[in-house]
């Protein structure tokens, strides 16, 4: 039975659509000239080594061209099989005789739809020892038809390296046809030539189909439609698979030292319901420890360079050209150099982080993490497939919102879009690192790791909250994952992925930061009070806006205008939080940033003041709020596109309420702890 991209083809349609089989007597490239020689067709699944075999048996005596009336390329050539000259046709790769592509359609037509006189005299079905079950399906299907069949098995050496040995005699016994191991890359095809010659010379015209094989269907006149067609199609494929499974079981032997066993053993732990999450947390903890500890000294050195010699040098140059102390110096030195320079100090950190994540991804571990995440989500009643956009969200929330389109159910999509902002994107990482380094020293990595754990907790909590309130009626959907094998990461790929992510981060983050630096600088330059404030910038439009909003955060211990201003800027984009701090503190006290650690000292002083001495809970509350509230306007735009304005605003409210509540709880509980 045939299927096409438009759906199953019923048998009567198939018969009506039977092509006039391309003549084998033409002289166009890709066609066989029947000159009395037997015609041998090579058939097999894609990437099975069929064309290598074709090249090996024909050598230079071959042509390749489109088959008449089609755009499908077919190779033809001459092969001296022992003492016999045969014409060889290299048929297009096909997984089965139920075609899903023009290539497969031509293979099906030439093997089983052509007039019997035009069919090949013998079919060599090429199968791979590394993927025996998949490639045997075509063989099982070909065996249902009145054709002489020989199996050629490739890639035995590759399979052996993986600890798999395929017994060709057992395979031949199971299928009832000759099976020959070949290695076309090394030219080892003489055994095949002998078997082909013998099979062609034999009086037995065709191979007997396996006893339980389904009846050959191509060309059958009866009409089968609808569900009956589907059921019969599945039943026929099922019977073929029974043949395949038995043949594989009879012929395949795996050694105990196979690499897949190692991979399986690791997977038993990595995807275990209890051990899996523990391993996942341990791996991520190690990633953040490595990131912060290795990057910290480089980051400090860069900070010292930019805030010292670079800023000082630029001031000196501007002073020399008569612009010292002017607004130009303010914008360039205290604005752009401070803001963009602060971003540059994060380059080593981001590079290490992206590289480590690329290692996890390329090794295959992140796929296991997806299994762990998926299981966790199922446990709390969230849609299983939602793990994908949420995992993507740990890189960036914007594509994560777009990625929710993989969810087929509208309400599942809505729920997931509302949860994406709680995933801790890499832009927030810069703030975590700066703040945790300034306040927690050698425990900075632990704090950063804790923020990611909290992110997961917030996702689960918000998900449960939404499912028990606004989104009660929602089904769940099972998801099956096909895990890739573990492998050693490729350095070249790691370098490419790391560079791609890093350069993209710098490109866009740089643009955002320059824009916000200019905006903050302009707002800071506009004085709206008459100098009553303790600090000049506080009297500016920027400072007054931040000061007006600051009381909202007093219960959380960070009701200071600097922190509030950074959060206002962070509403636009989290990349700009650190630069806005660097900028406003530099403008306020230019000397402070001319030495390493100056920004950290200023932050400590302000948190000390705003928290009434409870610095640690206030800082943690600040980080919690930063994690939980609106990630950036780009995410809002993406949300509005996916779920509309109303739900987007509900989401903003939910994020703010949850972030504020948890932040206040952290501070209020934390201040009670001595």
């Amino acid at each position, binding site marked *: 039975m045939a*299927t096409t991209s438009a759906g199953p083809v019923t048998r009567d349609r198939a018969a009506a659509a039977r092509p006039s089989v391309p003549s084998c007597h033409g002289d166009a490239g890709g066609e066989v000239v029947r000159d009395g020689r037997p015609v041998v067709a090579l058939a097999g699944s894609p990437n099975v080594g069929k064309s290598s075999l074709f090249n090996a048996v024909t050598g230079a005596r071959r042509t390749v061209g489109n088959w008449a009336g089609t755009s499908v390329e077919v190779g033809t050539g001459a092969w001296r099989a022992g003492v016999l000259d045969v014409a060889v046709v290299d048929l297009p790769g096909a*997984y*089965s005789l139920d075609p899903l592509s023009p290539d497969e359609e031509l293979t099906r037509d030439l093997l089983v739809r052509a007039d019997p006189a035009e069919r090949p005299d013998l079919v060599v079905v090429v199968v791979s020892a590394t*993927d025996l*079950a*998949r490639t045997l*399906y075509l063989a099982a299907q070909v065996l249902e038809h009145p054709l002489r069949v020989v199996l050629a098995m490739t890639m035995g050496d590759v399979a052996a390296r993986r600890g798999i040995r395929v017994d060709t005699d057992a395979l031949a016994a199971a299928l009832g046809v000759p099976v020959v191991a070949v290695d076309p890359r090394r030219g080892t095809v003489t055994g095949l030539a002998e078997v082909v010659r013998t099979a062609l010379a034999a009086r037995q015209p065709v191979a007997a189909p396996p006893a339980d094989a389904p009846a050959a269907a191509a060309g059958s006149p009866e009409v089968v439609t609808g569900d009956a067609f*589907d059921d019969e199609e*599945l*039943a026929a494929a*099922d*019977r073929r*698979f*029974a043949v*395949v*499974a*038995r043949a594989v*079981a009879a012929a*395949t032997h795996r050694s105990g030292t196979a690499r*897949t066993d190692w991979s399986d053993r690791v997977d038993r732990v990595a995807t275990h319901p209890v051990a899996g999450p523990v391993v996942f947390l341990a791996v991520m903890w190690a990633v953040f420890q490595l990131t912060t500890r290795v990057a910290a000294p480089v980051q400090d050195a860069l900070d010292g360079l930019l805030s010292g010699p670079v800023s000082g040098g630029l001031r000196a140059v501007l002073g020399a050209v008569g612009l010292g102390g002017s607004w130009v110096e303010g914008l360039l030195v205290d604005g752009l150099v401070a803001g963009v320079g602060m971003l540059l100090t994060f380059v080593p950190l981001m590079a290490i982080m992206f590289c480590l994540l690329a290692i996890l*991804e390329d*090794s295959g571990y*992140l*796929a296991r993490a997806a299994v762990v995440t998926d299981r966790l989500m199922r446990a709390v009643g969230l849609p299983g*497939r939602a793990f*994908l956009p949420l*995992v*993507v969200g*740990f*890189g*960036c929330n*914007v*594509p*994560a919102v*777009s990625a929710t*389109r*993989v969810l087929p159910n509208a309400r599942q999509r809505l729920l997931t879009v509302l949860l994406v902002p709680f995933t801790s994107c*890499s*832009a*927030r990482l810069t703030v975590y690192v700066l703040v945790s380094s300034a306040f927690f020293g050698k425990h900075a990595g632990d704090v950063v790791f804790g923020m990611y754990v909290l992110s997961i907790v917030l996702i689960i909590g918000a998900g449960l909250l939404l499912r028990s309130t606004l989104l009660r009626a929602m089904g769940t*959907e*099972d998801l*099956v*994952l*096909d*895990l*890739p094998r573990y492998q050693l990461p*490729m350095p070249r790929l790691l370098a*490419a*992925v790391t560079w791609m*992510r890093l350069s993209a*981060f710098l*490109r*866009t*983050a740089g643009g955002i930061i320059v824009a916000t630096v200019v905006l903050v600088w302009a707002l800071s330059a506009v004085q709206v009070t008459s100098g009553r404030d303790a600090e000049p910038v506080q009297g500016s439009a920027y400072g007054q806006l931040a000061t007006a909003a600051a009381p909202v955060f007093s219960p959380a211990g960070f009701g200071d205008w600097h922190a509030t201003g950074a959060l206002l800027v962070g509403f636009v*984009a989290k*990349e700009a939080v650190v630069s806005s701090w660097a900028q406003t503190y530099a403008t306020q006290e230019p000397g402070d940033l001319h030495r390493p650690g100056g920004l950290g000292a200023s932050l400590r002083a302000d948190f000390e003041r705003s928290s009434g001495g409870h610095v640690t809970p206030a800082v943690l509350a600040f980080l919690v709020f930063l994690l939980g509230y609106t*990630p950036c306007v*780009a995410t809002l*735009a993406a949300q509005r596109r996916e779920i509309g304005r109303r739900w987007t605003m509900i989401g903003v409210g939910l994020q703010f309420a949850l972030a504020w509540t948890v932040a206040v709880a952290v501070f209020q509980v934390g201040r009670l702890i001595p």
Partner: protein
Amino acid sequence: MTPVPATVGPLRAVLAELDAGAPTLDDVARRTGLDRDVVAAAVHQLVRLRRVTSSVLATTCTDGGCGTCPAGNGCDAHGAPAPAGSRPVLVSLTVRRRPGA
């Protein structure tokens, strides 16, 4: 290895386990007693028969950081980010419900 059940062929056994919510193909292999490669081949065939849909899942965004993708650049037609390379790829499989089933 457990023999293939006589009453249900391997293809339908795999389909039944997918339908029953087996989380991974390794689990399907354990539950059916089939060789892991036979299970993978069966799934491949079920996808071809349109009984199961298969989609590649990228677990991280190739474009990297937040600011890097304000318009979802680099995402495929479904909005999912393209996989980072041609190496390990996570594939999700979903059993297709037929009308009336």
